[in-house]
């Protein structure tokens, strides 16, 4: 069990204080306060072939309080920084939505929409290289459910993932505060749907496979992605991703693997380039004669985009995407129920995971 380095929240507070003192310095010197923020525009997002995920290139923009169009936003950025510092100091957290409402009481006045306050948070994250979770800002939604031989500690309380009820242990938004205590599993099997999760729990696949079963619940929350990343890095577990056989399923898996363009500034904390896709493929559709749905126009358009996407450049993806386009069909992971409820657990997955 690798131990994590110093408290990320204290580190974040250091960044905020340094930001404050630089600005005080500016003001005292009658220099316009300024801050450099890496550009998050499309042109500055690049796919890093070596790291195998999206990352930001070097373009930075300078925000300055001397610019009429920026001065209000600059003041709001400082208010937000101070709000976060208070959260860290008091050991509390808030949702982005709560911060948006809290801003109504700021001397700058509130934001016209939550989009804008969210963007200020992204500015702070990317300017200082800190995650919003470490600033005390949390998403509303919980992370995934986990079932399997894992013990964690959070807020001084030990939780066993096999003893939190049939629905499993739920990853809290405050994933940064969770410590791994013990782990008896050898791998992580993350599945797209709750239906498949319950099937695997019910059939005791977590035990058979010696795996932590994780329900991604569609596109996974940031807390879930942090969990998978840390399970991979700190526990050294290989990650397997079992999704539907459709462009959305591919995308869910690929965001876990290579990160999204939108979060390029934080992908080094999220992407797991070695995670493995074991979802439904076009070949599976053929080989297992699965029940399918017809591809919609939007699916076809999406698949054609994926063909051009650098993350899908390898032979496997190119072949499977082209085959799906020529089949004009997609299939869900639950489609294996055609052969009985247990089939997916007893036959399909063991083959994919090389357990058979």
């Amino acid at each position: 069990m690798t131990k994590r380095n110093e408290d990320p929240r204290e580190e974040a507070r250091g960044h905020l204080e340094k930001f404050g003192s630089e600005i005080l310095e500016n003001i005292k010197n009658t220099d316009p306060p300024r801050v450099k923020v890496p550009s998050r525009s499309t042109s500055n997002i690049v796919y890093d072939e070596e790291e195998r995920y999206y990352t930001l290139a070097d373009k930075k923009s300078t925000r300055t309080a001397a610019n009429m169009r920026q001065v209000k936003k600059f003041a709001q950025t400082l208010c937000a920084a101070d709000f976060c510092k208070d959260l860290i100091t008091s050991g509390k957290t808030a949702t982005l939505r709560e911060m948006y409402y809290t801003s109504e009481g700021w001397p700058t006045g509130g934001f016209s929409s939550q989009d804008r306050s969210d963007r200020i948070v992204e500015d702070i994250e990317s300017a200082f290289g800190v995650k919003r979770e470490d600033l005390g800002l949390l998403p509303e939604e919980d992370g995934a459910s986990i079932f399997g031989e894992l013990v964690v500690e959070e807020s001084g309380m030990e939780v066993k993932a096999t003893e939190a009820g049939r629905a499993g242990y739920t990853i809290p938004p405050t994933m940064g505060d969770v410590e791994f205590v013990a782990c008896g599993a050898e791998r992580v099997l993350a599945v797209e749907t709750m239906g498949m999760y319950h099937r695997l729990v019910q059939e005791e696949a977590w035990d058979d496979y010696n795996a932590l079963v994780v329900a991604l619940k569609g596109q996974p929350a940031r807390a879930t992605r942090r969990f998978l990343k840390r399970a991979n890095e700190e526990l050294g577990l290989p990650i397997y991703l079992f999704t539907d056989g459709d462009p959305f399923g591919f995308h869910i898996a690929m965001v876990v693997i290579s990160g999204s363009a939108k979060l390029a500034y934080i992908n080094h904390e999220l992407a797991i380039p070695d995670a493995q896709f074991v979802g439904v493929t076009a070949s599976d559709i053929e080989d297992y004669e699965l029940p399918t749905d017809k591809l919609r126009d939007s699916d076809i358009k999406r698949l054609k985009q994926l063909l051009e996407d650098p993350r899908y450049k390898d032979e496997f993806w190119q072949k499977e995407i082209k085959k799906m386009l020529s089949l004009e069909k997609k299939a869900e992971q639950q489609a294996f129920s055609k052969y009985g409820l247990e089939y997916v657990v007893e036959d399909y997955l063991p083959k994919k995971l090389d357990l058979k």
Partner: protein
Amino acid sequence: MVLARDIFKEFKEHSVSEFFRKNASMLGYTGKIRSLTTVVHEGVTNAIDAAEEAGTLPSVFVAIRSIDKDSNHYKVVIEDNASGIPDEFIPRVFGRMLAGTKLHRNVQNRGQQGIGISGGVMFTQATSGKPAKIITSTGDDDGISYNEVMIDVNKNRGKIMDHKRLEGDWRGTRVEFEVKEVIYQRSRYGPYNYLRMTAIANPHVQITFEEPDGSLTVFERATEQIPDEPKPIPPHPAGMRADGLLELSKNTRSKSVGTFLVNDLSRFSRNKLKKIENMVDVNLDKDPSKLTWDEAESLVSAFRKMDFMAPPTKGLRPIGEENIERGLRQILHPDFACAVTRSPEVYHGGIPFIVETGLAYGGDAGNRRGSEEGGLEIIRFANRAPLIFNQGGCALTSAAKDIDWRRYEVNTERTPLTLFINIVSTHVPYTSAGKQSVAEEPEVYEEVRQAIMEAARKLRRFLRKKIRRKERRQRANLFEKYLPIISQKAADLVGENPPEVEPLIKEIAGVESDEKK
């Protein structure tokens, strides 16, 4: 089997009046509101043209009086201060179609086809059975001529039903049409809006309008300057067709094809003559009336390979940028008005035309109908005469709609904006004899587009300047408000007291760094 001789016993010839009587909708007599506006339009158009031809500043009086409201029965009176009409011409002017002083000349006039006013007479007799009353005086000693005129439809001839001489010293013409099956409304399609638009496009005209409820509106003139009299323009070589050239060559007074080309076409210099000599196998010394079709075709195809100056403007009578602005200001009281008069161009057949546009922003401008707050109003004119109907199929409308107005800071749903478009030509390419909609000739469409964009650019400059002024005022306030907050919050972050921020405000509010991302 029926033999030819039996069939052709029935062969008959018919008059143009008979044709238009059966097809009155082709002249704009369709629908109760539109028919009334058409009557007013024909009368007012004639009145203004007549005054200008006579060299007087037009003053037009229009009255619509209700005779019997229940049966939609009205009297329409239109009076001008023009030259008057000699008695012998009255039956021909008012009772004969395709007759007038205009059709044969290559001159820009509001009226164009010699049908309009006779159409009014025909509509009068078809709906009320009454003759039109024509009261006119040429201002000489003979006093005033009172006439009642009807059309003999089968012969396309005017008939004088009654004629009197009245005492009086007055020059001008007054027509009275008693019509039925019409409705008076103050809508976009009614006579009021028609006259308002006429006043905008003719700032030298004074129009006094009496509505059926007795209320009187005076649209005052905004300039005392009578537009220059239009001159006939010879056709322009570009786009000329063989049949047009041949037609001309039959009627020329020139003795050789060469001099014919130089004299009877616009912009055809001696220089061009030398050039064309080497391009075609036509004897340029021959009698023009002997020109053959093939020769005409080869001349025309040579024209297409040559460059000519734009056609002369002397025959065209644009309103002019200054007067369009005056008209817009006088009637709409806008915050901003601008106008564009483009250089003349030619469309298919060598017909010269000029496009003018104007924009009025704020004040009474914009689409004011119903509960809407603003938005783009398009008012269309051809030779200064308003086009009110068939907005949909008109090249002026479609050119205006195809503009990406957002590029000019205009929101077509909200900005209070009136777009004025006038096409000036010796022969406006109408889509039908109703004269309400301009055909989509590519050259016309393109010119209108350009003219609108040119005016829109002027508007954009105004709107941006307006925005900038507002911004400068806001600028100082901004820094005064937010810099102290920045100072305070930075101090909070560090846990110090905030430093003095006044020097920085002075520094910044003086020299704004305009650094961009």
